């Protein structure tokens, strides 16, 4: 649970998954500040972020079944309604109305910039965005690391580079200018040949004290010719960042 974390961490948003990963009729397991979370999208498109345990006998809800309107626990088939988390049906007692206390603990949830954001508290504003003038945004493949968010941030601030046109084998691409918006949001901005500009905004998800997921959002002017090559290039760069952080 989030015990031992400061209120500013509890009361802020963190990206915990890419929107495209939280697909209908599935349940995604995430972890934020040592709290396990079950993420699931209902058929109307709304995403739920729930404590990852059934209030009845503690089984992870991430192994449960997303029926589109309810999440069904694998152990005893108890069903919980989207939105409220209220238990709607207890198969062992089909005629009994479940008590109001039979409810899954829920967390704050919102979707923005291609990510699902969760807060263990109740933040006032929306999540931190990319804040650039670029019109095209692409979410990069998120990377799990065995390193603290502070270590990732320190590695990024020591230097990060990426090519604007990976197909051009642009090994001479200049170092990006890395700015920390806060301890969990860092932006690497790169100007190429003085005119074209691109940025990767990194959203760090602290799973716990020494495990962090790096989420990346690429913003560019214009669409790259070979999207797959661009994604692969950024994946290589982020993997190198992970390797550097894990060897520190």
């Amino acid at each position, binding site marked *: 649970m989030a015990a031992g974390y400061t209120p500013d961490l509890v009361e802020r948003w963190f990206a915990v998954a890419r929107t495209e990963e939280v697909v209908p009729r599935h349940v995604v397991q995430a972890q934020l500040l040592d709290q396990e979370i079950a993420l699931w999208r209902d058929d109307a498109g709304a995403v739920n972020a729930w404590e990852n345990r059934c209030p009845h006998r503690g089984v992870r809800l991430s192994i449960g079944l997303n029926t589109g309107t309810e999440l069904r626990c694998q152990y005893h*088939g108890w069903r919980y309604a989207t939105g409220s988390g209220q238990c709607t049906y*207890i*198969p062992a007692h089909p005629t009994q109305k479940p008590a109001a206390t039979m409810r899954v603990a829920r967390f704050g949830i919102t979707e923005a910039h291609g990510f699902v954001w969760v807060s263990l508290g109740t933040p006032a504003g929306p999540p931190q965005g990319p804040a650039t003038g670029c019109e095209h945004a692409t979410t990069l493949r998120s990377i799990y690391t065995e390193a603290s968010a502070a270590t990732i941030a320190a590695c990024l601030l020591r230097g990060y580079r990426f090519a604007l046109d990976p197909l051009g084998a642009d090994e001479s691409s200049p170092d990006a200018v890395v700015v920390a918006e806060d301890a969990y949001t860092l932006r690497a901005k790169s100007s190429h040949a003085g005119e074209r500009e691109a940025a990767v905004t990194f959203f760090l998800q602290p799973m716990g004290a020494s495990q962090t997921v790096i989420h990346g959002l690429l913003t560019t002017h214009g669409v790259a010719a070979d999207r797959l090559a661009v994604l692969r290039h950024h994946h290589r760069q982020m993997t190198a960042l992970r390797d550097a952080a894990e060897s520190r």
Partner: protein
Amino acid sequence: MDGGGRCVRDDACPAGRRVLRPPQVESLLWDDWHVVAEFEQLRRSGRFATALLDVPLTLELDPDSGTVLARAGDEPLASVRIKYGFVWVCLGEPSRDIVEFPECGDADRLLGTAGSVRVAVSGLRAVENFLDLSHLSFVHAGFLGEEPLTEVKPYSVESSPQGGVIATGCRVYQPKASPIAREGFDVDYTYAVLRPYIVVLYKANPVEQHRRDMIALFVQPVSAESCVAHLLTCYLEHGVEPAAVRRFQQFIFGQDRPILENQLPKRLPLTPAREIPVRADMASAAYRRWLTDAGIRYGAIPAAADPAA
């Protein structure tokens, strides 16, 4: 393993045949018998390493005498026995004998071990799962239950004079109640928790429905958050193949294992505030109450230590 669980020589016992009880283990568990291996497995390998109550154990079979030498760390244990096809040890001074099952002496019964399965959860969770009626239609769908016949009808729970919990009058519809069942029928169940880590169930035999097959679960608490589940089956013969019984029980337990390993927390919370029970959970609720009354903390989260309580 932490310092509290290390085996050290008991100074009061220069023969070195006892180990000192770690502070996290209650004497009710320490001075009791626990299964630590299936005998057949030891017979085949000759030597077997395991752990009980945070204490590392090695078992060695003397091929000439057929006796088993058990060591806790380096200390030979005085209390080692073979019974029901399993190797039992007591780390302390046995305060009572190994559980007795009179049925096991019946000439027309087939006694068998159904294997030993390591489970990454408190053994108390494994015992509770064994007692649980309402999961049968879901975890064992098509065998020990099925939708929509999910209702758990009222049953009786009482505490046993010898300690423990007995649940009687449990009736559940089972599509395939045993390896020889050809059709579904309403099965009559009785459960008895005999020791904190030992539970047995009696269920109506598909051929002689007035007599009952017996399945015992001996849970070996390896640590507070991991265990080995050992199953003993005692079926009426009626054409039962030992290999089929074993296969059936391993299949059923294979369905329980992923559920058990996905329970959070791994230790069994004893306060009802942490995990909400319903009427179908009377047996599990009584088990948790009995553990509380017996002062069992090993493998549990006692109410006093639970921030959710």
